């Protein structure tokens, strides 16, 4: 198990190389020159040249790539080109609002989805099943932008149940700001989640061991909650845990619409202003998180499924 974990952690190295490479190609090779952008509308040729020199953009491409790789491994991302803020500090500041939005919403939606999926699985083929499935599919078919526009207008403005936008970092005040975007998040993820979990649970429900459990005289609910769910946890864990790294990056649209000062907004801003160091930092962080959480998935497997041994 230890060797497995170490091996997987070492796998981060080639992946970070790859991620740096993709981001590098996209932004250093293909994308526009950030210098005139940073200097504003009155920039002179000389100034642009000087700034490019300072940013290291006049170096040969390979040297630039090595710079990218180096900063990815040393975590020294420097400062944002666009805002001149320290990137680590920006991420530190943005992480909390993003997490206060995404983590509760994510947890509630996951638990709710599993419960609904169990209900649907219990009543499979019956009216409740069809109704919930249809609602899930229908809910999933509406554009997220439409949800945001309408919910903000209706629930926050017309009915006044929630704050329209903004954020306070203190607990529990932030709840009043993240409640509505959180609800939108839940509504958006409920559809795909319930459908996925339902499939997973139904895949298990026809297994032989379920028949054994019934033959013991267990009631249908015990069978579902104890025997089926525990086995269904394996694909559910994969599905759920692998989403977590992307929670850290926040929810781009929701944060933007509800003025939540999280990482999603930072990313969006960085993309809009060709702020390469920030984009790079976010990409590297997300890939590290991705690998760590895939690893966590594997470790959780060993807990959920005694058959799995990590080698």
């Amino acid at each position, binding site marked *: 198990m230890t060797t497995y974990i170490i091996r997987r952690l070492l796998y981060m190295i080639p992946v970070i190389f790859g991620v740096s490479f993709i981001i590098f190609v996209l932004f250093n090779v293909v*994308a*526009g*020159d*950030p210098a*005139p*952008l*940073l*200097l*504003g*509308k*009155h*920039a*002179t*040729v000389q*100034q*642009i040249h*000087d700034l490019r020199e*300072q940013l290291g953009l006049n170096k040969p491409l390979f040297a630039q790539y090595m710079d990218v790789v180096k900063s990815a491994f040393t975590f020294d991302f420097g*400062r944002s080109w*666009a*805002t*001149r*803020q*320290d990137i680590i500090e920006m991420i530190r*500041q*943005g992480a909390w*609002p993003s997490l206060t939005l995404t983590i*509760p919403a994510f947890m*509630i939606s996951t*638990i709710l989805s599993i*419960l609904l999926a169990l209900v649907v699985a219990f009543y499979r083929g019956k009216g409740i099943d069809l109704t919930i499935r249809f609602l899930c599919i229908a809910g999933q078919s509406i554009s997220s932008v439409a949800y945001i526009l309408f919910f903000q*207008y209706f629930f*926050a*403005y017309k009915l006044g*149940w*929630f*704050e*329209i*936008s*903004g*954020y306070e970092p203190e607990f*529990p*005040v932030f*709840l*009043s*700001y993240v*409640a509505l975007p*959180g609800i939108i998040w839940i509504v958006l993820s409920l559809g795909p989640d319930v459908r996925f979990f339902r499939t997973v649970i139904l895949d298990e429900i026809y297994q032989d061991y379920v028949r054994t459990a019934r033959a013991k005289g267990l009631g249908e609910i015990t069978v579902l909650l104890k025997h089926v769910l525990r086995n269904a946890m394996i694909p559910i864990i994969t599905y759920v845990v692998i989403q977590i790294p992307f929670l850290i990056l926040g929810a781009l649209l929701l944060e*933007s*619409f*509800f*003025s*939540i*000062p999280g990482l999603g*907004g*930072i990313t969006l*801003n960085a993309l*809009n*202003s*060709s702020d390469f160091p920030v984009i790079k930092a976010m990409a590297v962080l997300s890939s590290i998180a991705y690998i760590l959480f895939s690893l966590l998935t594997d470790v959780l497997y060993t807990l959920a499924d005694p058959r799995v041994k990590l080698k």
Partner: protein
Amino acid sequence: MSMRFIGLVFAFMIAAVGCSREQNFDEKVLNLITPQKIKGFDPIYAADLYASNEIGKVYEGLLEFHYLKRPYELTPNLAESMPEVSADGLTYTFKVKKGVLFQDSKAFPNGKGRELKADDFIYSIRRMADPKLQSTGWWLLDGKIAGLNEWRDKNANAEKVNYDEAVEGLKKVDDYTFQFKLAKPFPQFLYALAMPFTFAVAKEVVEHHGQEFQNYPVGTGPFKLDYFDNSNRIVYHRNPTFREKLYPSEGEATDEAAGLLADAGKKLPLVDKVIVNIVVESQPQWLNFQKGSADLLGVPKDNFDQAIVAGKNLHPDMAKKGIRLSMVNSLDTTYVAFNHTDPLFKDNIKLRQAMSLAYDHVESNKLFYNNTATIAQSIIPPGISGHKKEYKSPYIGRNLEMAKKLLKEAGYPEGKGLPELQYETVGSTVSRQQGEFFAKNMADIGIKIRISTNTWPELVKKTNTKTAQMFGIAWGADYPDAENFFGLLYGPNESPGSNSSNYKNATFDKIFAQASIMQDGPERTALYEQLYEMAGNEVPWIYGMHRTSVTVYQGWVKNYKYIEFNHTQVQYLNADLEAKKELLKKF
């Protein structure tokens, strides 16, 4: 267990919704909205409007624009008086007000703010020229102050920039007096001293905070920063050590009646606290304002139609709540630029004229500006000297027959032989709609337009590399002088300079070079008017509109008057708490 957990979470949410921010009536608070993340408070990077608005709350400059007087007029701020200018127009001598204190900061000994001195200005100006810092305002001073460029170049490759070395053009006379010496006449120089780029910073603070300086502003201004999260909220309190600065007691003729002189002679600032929320999306901006949780909302020039019905009135729902509307011509010009390096446009003035004639300004004004904009005849907006009221461009005003005729003469009868033209614009909703409108107009005379949307970096890249064929864009004045506009057509300023359409006209360039170094006066105005007409007749661009700035503000906000260069405005605003209590009942 899980059910109970969910219940708990929901209970929390509902509880939290109940305990959201309450309106506070003990203090005079202004709740403002800014639509962009604020980059930071370093004056030398004050290139964008929103950052400079925040900088202007904490820092101050030698001069400022008078809050009430129009046309815009410079008045002394930190300067004791307007400077003495030498006869050759090259030396400016300033005296600094005495007893002005920097705000308290741990960067100072004992944490007490020290007095502002002449050295602080010399230091602040040098920072703008510091080659390591790459100020976005350097263009203002580039080549203007004697010895400054040399100092900049000398230090470009130095390990550490040497601030001790004397610069000829920046001379301290005594603790409260210093002189600028210009390298060549530059009549717009004084405007630079009212712009946030040149606001005074204290060396101790800069050195104490190093790269974090932008997050710890310490100025002499009316407000002191309490809290700064560059993507969420900025909170200021009244600066307790602010000097005695009074609300002006004179203004335009109409100001008295508008109640703008009610607070005349009162000590500034008038409110205790300012909260600036960063709200990027227009829907929440509007909803917040209509809920009363924002006091003031500058409507983006391109999409104000939400607030206004049938022309110029406030939406009745809003009027009922006591909301008020301000609509004032702003100093800007929208246009569709031709790229003059493209042989298609370079020598074919008739093509340009034909296209200009095909454009439906009236309809555009109606669709996009609710008829509030002024149709541009040439490059300069009204309100700046050089604008010639009686000039009507022969190529503005839709005339399809004429346009078709000119198009034929241009060699493309009914658009035949003309390739599809590419129109670049930024990706915002309204820019896109304007592009669609333009394409629709051109189709009427047989010209095919392909619209390409870009992010701002992309568009900048395309114009800088001269690869944009046509692009829709606007220019707002940096300072109220025609030079700032004419420079956009001045040949030597071609891309990546500010002349992004790469227009070149020897006569125009000659007159511009001459006029730009003249002091204000009838002679210069005459030259400006000449340039104005040239710019109209030559159709280097298809001029669009001089837009109107629209602001909506709540009934309890007092002393609001539109000012184009508004970074120092907030200190003049007042809030009527009694009125607020009353009005909020209607929300």
